[in-house]
Each structure stands twice: as C-alpha cells, then as structure tokens.
C-alpha cells in the first residue's frame, strides 16, 4: 500500500530530515575516533562534546553528567546494575513498580537472583504510583528507586518530582526511565539522579541512548574497556549517532510546544473516537499522560489479530497482547492496572509522532470500527454484557 499510516511511534520513529543531514558528515568525512590524538580524532571529539553540551543544556544537567550508551536498554541496565555494584556496596534493596519496561524489570529480576532484594510497587487503575507508597517501601538498605517517567504502554505519567524529593530526603539514588517522556514533557531533572533516554524515540537514529548520572551519584561501569565516557561506559563513541541524538534533541526542544499540542489534540480525538465503539476501554490516565500514547482494549478480540487486520489496511499500531511471548500471559502493565482478562489480550497502542496528521487519525477512526466488528464476528465472546462471558 502506498499511503501507509504509521501510528507506532512509541516503538520507533522515522529519523527527521534535519537529523539525517546533521549526521551524514560523521560517517565518511569526520570519521576519526574521538579518542585519537590527531586532527581526525579531535574533530570527532569536538562533535561528541558539542552534542553532549546540547543535550545537557536541554536536560538542565552538566555535560559531564551525560553518559552515551548504545540505547536505553543499556542505560537502564547501567543505572540498575551499576548502582547495585557501586563501590563499597554489598547487597541491598531496590524499589520499583510493576509497570516498568522490561529493561528495568529484568535487570531487577537479575539482581534478586544474585542476592539483592526488591519491592515492586502496585499502581492504581490508571497506572499511577503514589509517592507515599514509595516512602513506605523504603528500607535502611534501599540504595535505588527506579520509576518510569511515563509509561511506554499506556502513557500514564508518574509523580517523578515528588518521588525524587522523597529519595533525596533519604539519600537514596533515584532513577527514571524517561525513554518515552524525553522531549515530550518537561522532565524535573533536578530531582533525578539517574535518567535513561533513547534517540530513536524522538526522530533520532537507533543505536544511541544516554544515561544521566548526577555528580554525586556513584555507579560502577558494566562495560569494561578503554575507559570511555569518564570510565562509566567503555567503547568507542557512536559519533554519528550521538550527533543525531543532539540534532533530534534540538528539534524536539524547538517543536515541543507545537507538536505536543497537536499530539494532545490527536489523543483527545482518539479517546472520543475509539470510545464510541461499544465494548472498549481506555487503558491509562485520561489526561495525566504522555501526549503521544493512547492505549485501548477491545472486548472479545485479541490484539495481535487487531494489529494484523489494521496492517492489511496499511495502518501500523501495536498491542500489549503477549500472544507471541513464551508465557502467553497478557501485558504485565495491563494486568497491573487491573484490566479484566477478557480485555487485556485485546489491547491496541496507538502512538503519534511529529509527522502524524489529522488525516492519519481520520483514517484509523474510519477503519478501526469495521476491523473490530469483523473480528468480533469471529469471536465466541459476546459484546455488550458486563460479565464479558462467552454467549451460549
């Protein structure tokens, strides 16, 4: 199909033309290794440090507090494992939530299988954790609190500033996975000690991310080698990627108000439009949300089928249905917010980007009701009764 509609911008985004332009010279003209002493190296080093300064300014942190990584998964791993194995620490306790990205959850699971303790907090029906829950979970040996800034699945924003203040009071490091929030909302970075972000979620390239490590926060490196990134992450810097990350950050800073307002309008349209289809529910907070993510469940149908049917119509979206995951259980995020099982498998995440237009939303809202009806006609589950039970 020629005019395909891409509404899966939480998975990844197209690189913006100006980002690609900024990156291009760093593949074949300015190709030096930033660690080299000669002119080729110095040129590349200047580009990396200028990029670091750009991103640091945007985040209101110091340039030396920005550590570039291969992506946000590495940044999350570095934050959690690096804190756990920080100098002079042995064992201890981590506090997080049940709705984190797997890069955080699985890192914490790995820690608990290696002698650490963890508390994963429940969230309310909209996906929000209360600052008081965090306070109550803190122990004497708690060394890290890690809470997502805005949910990658349902968009709900967490009270990061308040949680950061509690951690600061207690002298406990606070990490936030800001992958979806970076560039979309004003992040309260002064109250955060560790922050993960990724370039490809905001029209930058894949393969580059960052971890902010505030000056007084101690982590151990998890990648050992030539001592790059002030010894916190060894490995030759991805120069074009880092330059692209900075260009994407500049673009996001310049456009955030305008694009953000548009995304919020699209989200409101989606909530109204999808809400008018019977047997649907919005997963996540109606307003206290990232602007670009809207997640819905459809009674009586399964999410993967829904994504595939939309794909036939040239529309790309995604699902929290874990139909292809080995355990076959529905999304841990949807389970955590209490989505009934009859609906947890039938979820659809629609996520917009800077390129999304009203026509894209029109197209989705035109196709979706037909596709939902089509799949419901195949399903043994009846729609329209409170119990969602199969019809006899």
């Amino acid at each position: 199909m020629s005019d395909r509609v891409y509404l899966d911008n939480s998975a990844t985004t197209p690189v913006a033309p100006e980002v690609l332009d900024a990156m291009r010279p760093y593949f074949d003209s300015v190709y030096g290794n930033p660690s080299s002493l000669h002119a080729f190296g110095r040129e590349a080093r200047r580009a990396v440090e200028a990029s670091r300064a750009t991103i640091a300014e945007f985040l209101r942190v110091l340039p030396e507090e920005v550590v570039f990584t291969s992506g946000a998964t590495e940044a999350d791993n570095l934050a959690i494992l690096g804190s756990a194995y920080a100098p002079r620490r042995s064992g201890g306790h981590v506090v997080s939530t049940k709705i984190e990205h797997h890069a955080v959850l699985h890192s914490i699971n790995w820690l608990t299988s290696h002698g650490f303790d963890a508390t994963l907090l429940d969230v309310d029906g909209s996906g929000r954790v209360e600052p008081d829950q965090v306070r109550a979970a803190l122990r004497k040996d708690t060394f890290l609190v890690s809470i997502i800034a805005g949910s990658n699945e349902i968009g709900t924003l967490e009270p990061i500033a308040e949680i950061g203040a509690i951690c600061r009071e207690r002298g406990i490091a606070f990490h936030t996975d800001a992958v979806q929030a970076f560039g979309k909302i004003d992040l309260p970075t002064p109250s955060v000690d560790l922050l993960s972000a990724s370039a490809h979620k905001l029209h930058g390239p894949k393969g580059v991310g960052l971890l902010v490590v505030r000056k007084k926060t101690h982590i151990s490196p998890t990648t050992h080698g030539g001592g790059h990134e002030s010894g916190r992450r060894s490995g030759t810097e991805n120069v074009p990627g880092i330059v692209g990350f900075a260009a994407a950050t500049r673009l996001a800073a310049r456009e955030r108000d305008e694009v953000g307002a548009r995304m919020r309008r699209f989200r409101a349209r989606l909530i109204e439009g999808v809400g008018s289809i019977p047997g649907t529910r919005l997963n996540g907070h109606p307003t206290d949300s990232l602007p670009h993510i809207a997640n819905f469940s459809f009674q009586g149908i399964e999410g993967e089928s829904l994504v595939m049917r939309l794909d036939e119509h040239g529309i790309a979206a995604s699902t929290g249905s874990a139909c292809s995951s080995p355990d076959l259980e529905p999304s841990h995020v949807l389970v955590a917010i209490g989505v009934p099982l009859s609906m947890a498998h039938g979820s659809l995440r629609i996520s917009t980007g800077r390129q999304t237009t009203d026509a894209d939303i029109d197209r989705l809202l035109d196709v979706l009701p037909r596709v939902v009806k089509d799949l419901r006609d195949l399903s043994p589950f009846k729609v329209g009764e409170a119990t969602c039970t199969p019809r006899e």
Partner: protein
Amino acid sequence: MYTERVIEHFRHPHNMGKLANPSAIGKVGNIVCGDVMWLYIRVEKDGQGRDVIADVSWETFGCTAAIATSSMVSDLAKGKTLLEAIAITNQDVAQELGGLPPVKMHCSALAADALNEAIHNYLSEHGMPIPDALRRRHEKIEKDVAALDKRYKAFLDREQAKEGAAAAGEPNSCN
C-alpha cells in the same frame, strides 16, 4: 513470521461463525492465554450409513495463527467421516498452512483439540463407542485445562473480583 497460507486464511477465513443446529460443540482454550476456540459440527449419515461431518464452523478469540488454524481445521474436517476426522492432528493443521512459528504451534494444537472435543462430545452424547485414541486425547485435554486453571487461579480469582466490581457499577469496564 507467518506464511502466505496463514495470512490468506486469516484474511479470508473459511466456515466462520456459529452453526445453526449443531450436532456437537468442542470448546477449548483459556482466556488467560488469549485463545479460545469453539468448533461446531453437524453430523449426518452418508449413503453408506457412515457418520460424516456434513458441516462445520467455528468461533475463535485469538491471534492471527489461532484464526488461521481454526479456518484450516474446519476445511480439513468438512466432509470427512468421524473416524477420518479423529485422525487429524495439529501437525496436519500446521503443515497445511505451510508451517507455523514455534511459539504459535499451540494454536494448531488448540484447533485439533477443538475438533477432537466436538467429536468426543458427539459420540458420548449419542452413547456411541469412543475410540481409545480419542478418549486418551480427551482426557489429556481435560487435564491440560485443569492444569491451566490451576496455574492461572490467581488471575481468574482476581478476574472474578473484577467482574463483581463491574456488576456493582464500575465505570468504563466492559461497557
């Protein structure tokens, strides 16, 4: 990840929907796993007095593979004698679709199970002898269902509490 045959059956499924006046129904699957399949059969005598699946249809809640395997098993079963239909395995279903991704093989098992259960129910409702192989598969399916129910008891208990809340007027749930 899916073969052309799978996509074709998913796009244009055969024999879907509820069958009017079915002779028997096979119900398999578990909502926690996201696949529920109901298979309807209508059994008639053919010219030689054999029991034949004269018509078959299905209703499936599930992924692309679940829908494609439902469609395929209905094609395979239609027109077959009960004895022939009993011999249809999940491997047959997957093979006819040009293969399934490993993680989706359970969908083909579900489709074969649904057919198995429909035939088993037909035979037992009519007091007819049940071949050993069919009975053993039926017992295994029942055991699997019990194991799933046990494994997902916490899920299902929570679900019931949820439904209680919904009945009490919880907004925006199953509206």
